[in-house]
């Protein structure tokens, strides 16, 4: 029974959504089901938020390693929750949006969360450098090919690339490094990406059919649930 109900719901919703692609009067179903999903997800947030509180309160109570960070987490969680729930500092009345400019929620989000997020994102620059260094080491034939392609594209995106091959006559313009870089991106690279996309599309169809038909049920806890 624990599996029968979700499997039945999956079958009905999946079938209806497929049919709605071809029957215009059912076209709004996708939006409706997405809305329902969002409502369910909001309720599930209580589980997530509760879990977060439980984990960090336990960590504090038992004085586990790095328990000090739990104080920061709990303080941040409570402050944002209070700012959002009570709309502290909101311009206008209670009906205004929780993230209206000027509100405490907006101010904390804009001046704390956004810069912290940007800081994490900026780490990507260093990780790209370290990952590229490893990927472009000419260990074998494929890696050498990758290195050469990457080198051409890097050069092609700089004025130096243009300077180097400006002398190549227009009849051989493909050999100019910027044009070569464009060709690599638009032909071999795009062909590879499209091949992957076709595979993904077919994989999604197959996986969806397995889910709709109830062949795949391990996401419900397998056959042991």
């Amino acid at each position, binding site marked *: 029974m624990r599996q029968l109900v979700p499997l039945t719901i999956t079958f009905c919703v999946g079938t209806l959504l497929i049919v709605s692609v071809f029957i215009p*009067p059912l076209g709004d179903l996708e939006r409706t089901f997405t809305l329902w999903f969002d409502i369910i997800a909001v309720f599930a947030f209580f*589980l*997530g*938020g509760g*879990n*977060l509180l439980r984990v960090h309160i336990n960590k504090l109570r038992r004085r586990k390693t790095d328990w000090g960070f739990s104080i920061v987490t709990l303080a941040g969680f409570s402050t944002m929750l209070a700012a959002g729930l009570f709309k502290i500092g909101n311009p206008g009345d209670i009906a205004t949006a929780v993230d209206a400019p000027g509100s405490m929620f907006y101010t904390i989000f804009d001046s704390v969360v956004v810069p912290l997020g940007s800081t*994490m994102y900026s780490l990507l620059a260093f990780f790209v450098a370290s990952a590229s260094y490893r990927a472009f080491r000419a260990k074998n034939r494929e890696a050498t090919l990758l290195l050469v392609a990457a080198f051409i594209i890097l050069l092609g995106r700089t004025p130096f690339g243009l300077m180097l091959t400006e002398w190549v006559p227009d009849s051989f313009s493909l050999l100019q490094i910027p044009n070569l870089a464009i060709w690599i991106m638009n032909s071999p690279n795009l062909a590879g990406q499209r091949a992957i996309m*076709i595979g993904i599309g077919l994989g999604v169809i197959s996986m969806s059919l397995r889910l709709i*038909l109830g062949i795949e049920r391990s*996401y419900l806890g397998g056959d042991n649930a």
Partner: protein
Amino acid sequence: MSFHRGRTSSLASGLTARLAIFIIVIAFLVTPTSWSQADGPDPVLAGSDSALASLAPITSLVAEDNTYDNGNALRLIWVPSIDDRLIDSKIIGYRVYRLAGAGEPRAIAELPPGSNQYLDETVLRDSVYSYYISTLSERAEFPSNRTAAISPQREWINLDRGYLFLIALAIAGAVIYYVTVAKRGKKLFVRKIAGLEAIDDAVGRATEMGRPVLFIPGIHDMDDVQTLAALTILGRVSRTIADYESKIFMPVARSLVMTAGREVIKSSYQAAGRPDAYSDDMVNYITDEQFGYVAAVDGIMVREKPATVFLLGAFFAESLILAETGNSVGAIQIAGTARPAQLPFFIAACDFTLIGEELFAASAYLSGEPRQLGSLKGQDVGKVIAMVVMTVGVIALTFAEAWKIEFMQDILDRLSIIFSTN
């Protein structure tokens, strides 16, 4: 006296006229919007500014039913004003007016210069509407003629998607056929997938080193098929972990994924005969915030130093940050996603990568169940169709372009119609 009176009268009338002109001019300058918001097609225009009055309105305005919808949209098409130019244009945009039945006109949209169509999705089926569009300058608007009255119609079947239906039917039919064939006991060959073959070794390594396994199911919710695929692999991974008496930790970015993940791991531990070893603390919710989640997971990696990291699901900009941190702590990493833009990062930073469809094939591959393997075989029929179409398309395009063969151009046009379904 009479002269004097007449002069006085003439002076008075002159003053009155000047005062009236003065008031009109002041009113004109102070309230420019009063005349720019004309609500009908009659040209209530700039008045004194003759240069503005010369702007041409749009022409050939037609309202038509938007095809294959639920009767909730009308499409307007027109030829922009001849004064609508890229350089030195006096036109600042267009304002669309709608009249419902015999009602008053109401402005429903403002469009930028250069616009030549608009889809009104705020109409009701079986109601009657007409439209006109005003060309806007800085200080005036110039209405077009009204369209004929029109009512949006509902269509029951989207014939534009007929080919899509046939293609979907062929692929779905093939999947179901091969599932049935596999159920009858026919052996199906599935090539080896290195990333999935390595799962047992990766978990074994974590057991030997006495370190945990970290499972990261992406940052999307349960409505993403990639997350579902990740959870199906989690079932197998957690079963192996339960067998090996190793430890698993799964930080998640969505509450529903936390609930589903706990359910999957719990079932695996039960199936392995070790329900007592299961704990809800194996799966923890961190935050929905993308980089907040990344910061927390990176911290866990650096502190706990997991021996094995699984990065399976929907990943975005965080993919490389997570994979490189895992790499820096010396973990063996198995990654997989259906986001082509993130695949190069995983390939560069991880030991094994499930590329696109391999992520979706994983559950079938790992379970070895004939019905699931049959679905993979059905998928191959789709690939054959794609290969045939691409080959025919390339040949047709080459011949049509190089030798101007009309027959090949016809094939190309037909393929374009079939595969450009909206």
